């Protein structure tokens, strides 16, 4: 029996219990009707969610857009390096065994992206402006958090992109296996809109808060992400390399303010953990 079938049975059982309670017009000892109703709601939500395989299929369609817009940077050493650093950080998340893949896109833009199921991208323009592995870990941690919390799917289901992506997502999930050809172009369009409009702003702040913790869990100085945000703030909103990032994220100053409110004191004790600047520069520069 698949997890989906088990959930279906649970939903049916819970519905029956609720129906029994309602018909009998009195409280059944041992059954809290409200709780049973909540269970039904949760189960129904879960059934409408893509499972992990579908999540990855959707994520792969969207990741293919990004590498279609900008190919992988022809620097195999740097590509392998972001994969070990990224996987190491992801191991400290709640989804350590996703098939995580990381890539550096050959673009001068300063940006980073994630798609469902564990595809994570940073641009060359962002990586070369970093100073250390702790900074890279913080940025990857932010993107890993988007995947762990399924922010992209949430945006399509109920958030800013529900009008564009909600229907196609429901269709894809309904098919149970693979993305059928007739839905592919709709799914690709929804993904493009997502990259151009960005996620819900609260989810960006949440990814920042989680990113610094993931870096600390992985043994790095958690102040790497704020250091990158300072670099971005210093480049300025008028910088053409930053146009899309500024359109799709809260302003870096606001993100720094929000991090300042939560990082000290809880994360201060980890600020003496390594930044690993030397290995970072060596691995990216190919020496």
């Amino acid at each position: 029996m698949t997890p989906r079938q088990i959930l279906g049975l649970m939903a049916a059982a819970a519905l029956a219990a609720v129906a029994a309670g309602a018909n009998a017009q009195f409280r059944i000892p041992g059954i809290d009707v409200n709780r049973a109703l909540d269970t039904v709601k949760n189960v129904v939500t879960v059934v409408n969610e893509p499972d992990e395989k579908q999540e990855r299929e959707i994520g792969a369609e969207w990741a293919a857009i990004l590498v279609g817009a900008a190919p992988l940077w022809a620097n195999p050493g740097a590509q392998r390096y972001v994969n070990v650093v990224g996987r190491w950080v992801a191991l400290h998340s709640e989804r350590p065994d996703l098939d995580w893949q990381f890539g550096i896109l050959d673009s001068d833009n300063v940006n980073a992206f994630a798609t469902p199921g564990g595809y994570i991208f940073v641009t060359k323009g962002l990586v070369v402006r970093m100073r250390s592995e702790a900074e890279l870990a913080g940025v990857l941690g932010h993107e890993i958090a988007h995947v762990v919390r399924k922010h992209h799917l949430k945006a399509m289901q109920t958030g800013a992109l529900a009008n564009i992506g909600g229907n196609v997502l429901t269709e894809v999930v309904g098919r149970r296996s693979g993305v059928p050809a007739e839905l592919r172009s709709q799914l690709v369009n929804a993904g493009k809109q997502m990259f151009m409009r960005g996620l819900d702003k609260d989810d960006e702040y949440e990814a920042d808060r989680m990113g610094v913790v993931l870096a600390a869990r992985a043994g790095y100085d958690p102040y790497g992400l704020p250091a990158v945000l300072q670099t971005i703030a210093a480049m300025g909103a008028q910088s053409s390399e930053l146009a899309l990032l500024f359109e799709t994220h809260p302003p870096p100053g606001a993100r720094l303010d929000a991090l300042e409110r939560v990082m000290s004191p809880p994360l201060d004790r980890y600020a003496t953990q390594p930044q690993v600047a030397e290995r970072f520069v060596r691995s990216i520069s190919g020496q």
Partner: protein
Amino acid sequence: MRLAAAVAVLALAALPAAAQEFGFMVRQTEVKAEPFADAAAAGTLPERAKVQIVKRQGAWMQVKGDGAAGWVRMLAVRTESGSAGGAGSSGLASIFSFGRGGSSGTAVATGVRGLDKEQIRNATPNPNELARMKGYAASRADAERFGASAPRLASQRVDYVASASAPAAGGGGAGGGQASPLGGN
């Protein structure tokens, strides 16, 4: 890649001393003699005071300002537009300089390549390039070996932090706020 690596070595050797970085204080801040909360005071910098950034160390920045020099919390500083913050101080940006010319040093008059709104709108998905990316993937074992190699990265149990207005991430859904030294099994 050999050539690129050789060029990178040359470029690193030719790097100028780290460019100066400047910033300003976001609020009135007590300057510390050392990078610790309980270190001795070494003066005060007012809100908006301009500072030169000397060094970064975790949560702290060593700064020189008008009338006070020492350590302040890095998040009390905003780096200035146009300062070296934009170029980064690792020197990598000047090795892989772009727009103004590649590592060959010849000027190439290109705009920003790759991931503008228009370029995403017009992108054709490239599943072959995505398949190539899988070739660089690291397994759990690869990552664990990496963490254990020098410089060793010590896994920590750390809870997610709550925002002032929102509960800590991971209260439900896919997350789970449990702080695990190495997640999963």
